């Protein structure tokens, strides 16, 4: 029992195809991968929103902003 179906290297390499584990679950892996990618955008957007809200609430007087502009 092997995760990629190979038990030994007593084979002719010209007869060997895919070697990765859990062959046959490629579609499931792609779905999980897509969820990871889309999930990343959702979490990143939430994080960026919170960051922008904090920036908006900061420096009411504008002093730090003027300093930042002067620093270039």
């Amino acid at each position, binding site marked *: 029992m*092997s995760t*990629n179906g190979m038990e*030994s*290297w007593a084979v*002719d*390499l010209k007869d060997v195809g895919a070697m990765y584990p859990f062959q046959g679950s490629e579609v499931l892996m792609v779905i999980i991968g897509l969820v990871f990618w889309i999930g*990343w955008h959702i979490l990143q957007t939430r*994080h960026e929103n919170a960051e922008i809200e904090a920036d908006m609430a900061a420096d009411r007087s504008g002093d730090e902003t003027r300093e930042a502009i002067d620093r270039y």
Partner: protein
Amino acid sequence: MEGNLNALTTIFTEFYYWVTIVMMFLIHVGFCTYEVGVSRRRNHLKTLMKNAMAIPLVTVTFYFFGWWIYFGFPNGPGMVPGGLATAPFAEPWNPLMGTHLSGVNPGETGVTPTDAALWHRLNGVFWGAFLLFSITTASIISGSIIERARSGAFWIVAVLIGSVLWILDASWGWHPQGWMVKLWGYHDAYASGVVHAIAGGAALAFLIVLGPRIGKFRPDGTARDIPPHNVWLVTIGLFLIYTGFWGFYAACNIPLISPATIAGQITGDTWTATNIYLAPTTLSAITFNFLMSLSGGMMAGYIVSKGDPFWTFSMGLCGVIATSAGNDLYHPIQAMLIGAIVPSICYKLHYFVERRFKIDDAVGAVAVHGYGGFLGVVVAGFMLWGQPSSPYEGFAHINPLGNFAGAVLMFALGFAPTFVVCKILNSMNLLRVPAKVELEGVDFALNHAFVASVREVAAAEKALIK
């Protein structure tokens, strides 16, 4: 024709490894850039020199004995029959450790025609590639101990880890005939354990004995952040390490070999690239998996660290390290997911260990390399369960227990000897600079000399103004 084909293969292999050595040098440019970026301004020069001088020190010692250790100890301390293996071509006094064209001169001792045919063009480039792994292993420790460790102490540990310990573990678990591969089915194709876990274990031992930087912990024991003085430099350094890592990965493969040369169970006459165990893989496989695991690590790092550049880049590196044990065989999406999950655990572990045990790891090396490498080996044991570890008959198959035991052994082999050596150095007052020097900055004298020179030359020039 066959002779020319063999010559072409040999020269191609020689050139292939030579290119990997050049690429891997970028890892060290990256480490130096990164460490200087993390250190505060009063510590730059000593930080740079501490890391940079590991290069010549590990190089000469790896020539004198490191290379021979790799071939001498695959049977372990009596783990499999055979005892100490002979490897005359790796002894520093052997003619094959210099320019050689494969014949045997009259009176030339210690060179057999078989050794000469195999090693005359490959010895130097194999030695060089392994040496760059060695320097990497040493450099990993360097960053975590900045701003308070004595350079001399680090250089002793660098030789210990770079030219003795890591190459010993490579002989055991990263060698086609290594006892860990034979008995345990240990699989660690791109060195999660044999380079990173052992270096992380050594770094942790060094840090425990060394103690934290002054000011790292508040009186109530909570940790202060000591930010890098230049985040730009840190991230460029990590980018350079990523780039050099391509060479590291390529150097872990044999680029082209025939089944007849492997002389294992593989039948037919299809030539192939292999991993270090001489089991088939492809450069395409590692290209897919390197990039997907790097991406998984960076994406997870961005979220977990809330966009912190230092940790986003570090977790990208950790993603690669966490999949390196099995990146010859993983599917790219598996590499991406492992590359995302393991670094997230390592990030949490870094702060847990810092909080709980007051460990001040300035660059997170124990987390990125130590925990990342350890977990990477463990995960590979599950993911590749039952697959053949070797093309040779009678070797154990890859399995979770074998890889777990291997990961523990790698970490411990770095930790225990380094702990003992650091204790000895500490007892001799050779491990840490005095508190006054740490507060002044380890560059204090160098900076004084610099300022004095600037003032003197400026005064001399101003005196000439009419």
